[in-house]
């Protein structure tokens, strides 16, 4: 791509207080509007990398360089956690309102935007429900709506669908792709599922553990727009095989036992 990347990391490293080297020398550039999947086994530092990018933790080495110099302001990064992490005492609408509320928008001012984003994730009619009344997939939709409500430039998702059943996950994958196409934001999606990474992403960055680093970066050239039927095609199978082999190679290099 001709334009400079939205951000790139320079020899990014992170060491936990316990002394464990979580990330070492991570070099990763992400283009504007790209859908990138970070793929790797559990404990390879994917979540840590995401937290550093979001500015939730400070790197112990290296830096993240954003295009234009300044790091994103609050609300320019949307974050979706592994768990829906909704506030149980607040309704769906109030949970989604939260990021705007923290910016000083009243419920009335935020109302139209909250309603619009709830419709985008397919939750119109559930604005007044409480989280406990929702299924796991619906809670995750609320969590995504909450991340989208500020119109972030970058959406970071940390294994958001790992705890969901397969059918729900497929539907959420399809819907996430539609949202990405409609909104044109940049997405970083952490997963340990090869199939999910290949289905969603334009590029898959494979991470290796102990210490975590980017071992390979594979473009996924599948026909766009992608939809559910793609999962049963031969090209999809071939792409998954390529990524699986690359993942296996990294893990073998590492001496780690394959999952």
């Amino acid at each position: 791509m001709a334009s400079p990347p939205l951000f790139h990391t320079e020899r990014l490293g992170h060491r936990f207080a316990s002394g464990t080297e979580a990330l070492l020398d991570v070099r990763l550039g992400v283009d504007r509007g790209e859908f990138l999947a970070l793929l790797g086994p559990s404990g390879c530092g994917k979540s840590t990398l995401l937290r550093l990018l979001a500015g939730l933790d400070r790197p112990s080495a290296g830096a993240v360089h954003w295009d234009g110099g300044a790091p994103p302001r609050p609300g320019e990064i949307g974050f979706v956690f592994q768990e829906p992490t909704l506030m149980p005492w607040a309704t769906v609408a109030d949970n989604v309102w939260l990021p705007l509320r923290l910016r000083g928008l009243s419920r009335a001012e935020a109302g139209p935007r909250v309603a619009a984003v709830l419709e985008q994730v397919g939750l119109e009619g559930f604005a007044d429900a409480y989280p406990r009344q929702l299924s796991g997939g619906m809670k995750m939709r609320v969590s995504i709506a909450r991340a989208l409500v500020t119109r972030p430039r970058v959406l970071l998702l940390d294994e958001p669908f790992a705890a969901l059943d397969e059918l729900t996950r497929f539907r959420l994958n399809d819907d996430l792709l539609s949202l990405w196409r409609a909104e044109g934001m940049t997405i970083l999606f952490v997963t340990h599922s090869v199939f999910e990474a290949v289905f969603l992403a334009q590029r898959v960055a494979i991470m290796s553990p102990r210490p975590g680093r980017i071992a390979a970066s594979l473009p996924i050239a599948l026909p766009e727009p992608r939809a559910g039927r793609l999962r049963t095609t031969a090209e999809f199978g071939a792409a998954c095989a390529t990524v699986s082999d690359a993942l296996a190679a990294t893990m073998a290099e590492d001496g780690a036992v394959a999952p």
Partner: protein
Amino acid sequence: MSRSAPDAAPGAPARARENGRLRRLLAPVGLGFLFLGAWEWAVRAFAIPPYLLPAPSLIAQTLGSDGASLLASLGITLLITAAALGAAVLLGGLLALLMAQSRTLEAALFPYAVVLQVTPLVAIAPLIIIWTDNIALSLVICAWIVAFFPIVANTTLGLNSAARELHDLFRLNGATRWQTLRLLRVPAALPYFLAGLRISGGLALIGAVVAEFVAGTGGTSSGLASRILEAGYRLQIPRMFAALLLLSAAGLAIFWALSALSRQLLRHWHESALDPER
């Protein structure tokens, strides 16, 4: 608040819930009557004199004749209890909020809250009574000391109980300290605070009674504890039982009212306030 379609309860479970509620009410009442009946029978059958153990019927009779004076005393005890509980909520809540501001502050203050809790009330009540000229005020302070700690301890725990990810979310969105406190930590602490409040309600009553025993107030402006002491000295055992009965009833009522408050405030979201059938 409009209920969403997927949770509309059909008729049969609603009826089952109604039955459950009735059972929860009738079972203890039934057991109580059984117990009173056995008591009444035993007193008559073994001809136990009323200065050892008065029959329930005699206690009820005494309650009828002495009710007005006992109720006035109960009113004073309840006033002291309410003042102490109010002070415990206010000061306990403030201390918990203060301690939630930094771990250092919490580490510095918490041991002193514990000291207040573990010092036996009867040991320090005389001091407090000497230090304050106003007897009612000294009783309130004594009752406050016992009611204070559960609120502080529970609220402090609750203020630190919000999920780490929610704290991250607040940080990502540039929340101020005040916003995080008001919109995240305080709501997360509410169930803990209410659990503490239920404990403190009973303790405040006990504190008010114990302090009055120590103070040994007399005259018309005295609470139920003095009535119990008086009755004991004069061997008016049925009157003593009547006062005890009022005291227990007041304790139950306080607990019930605070439980109802807790259920009302948490009804939308907290597991403790949801119907068990759900």
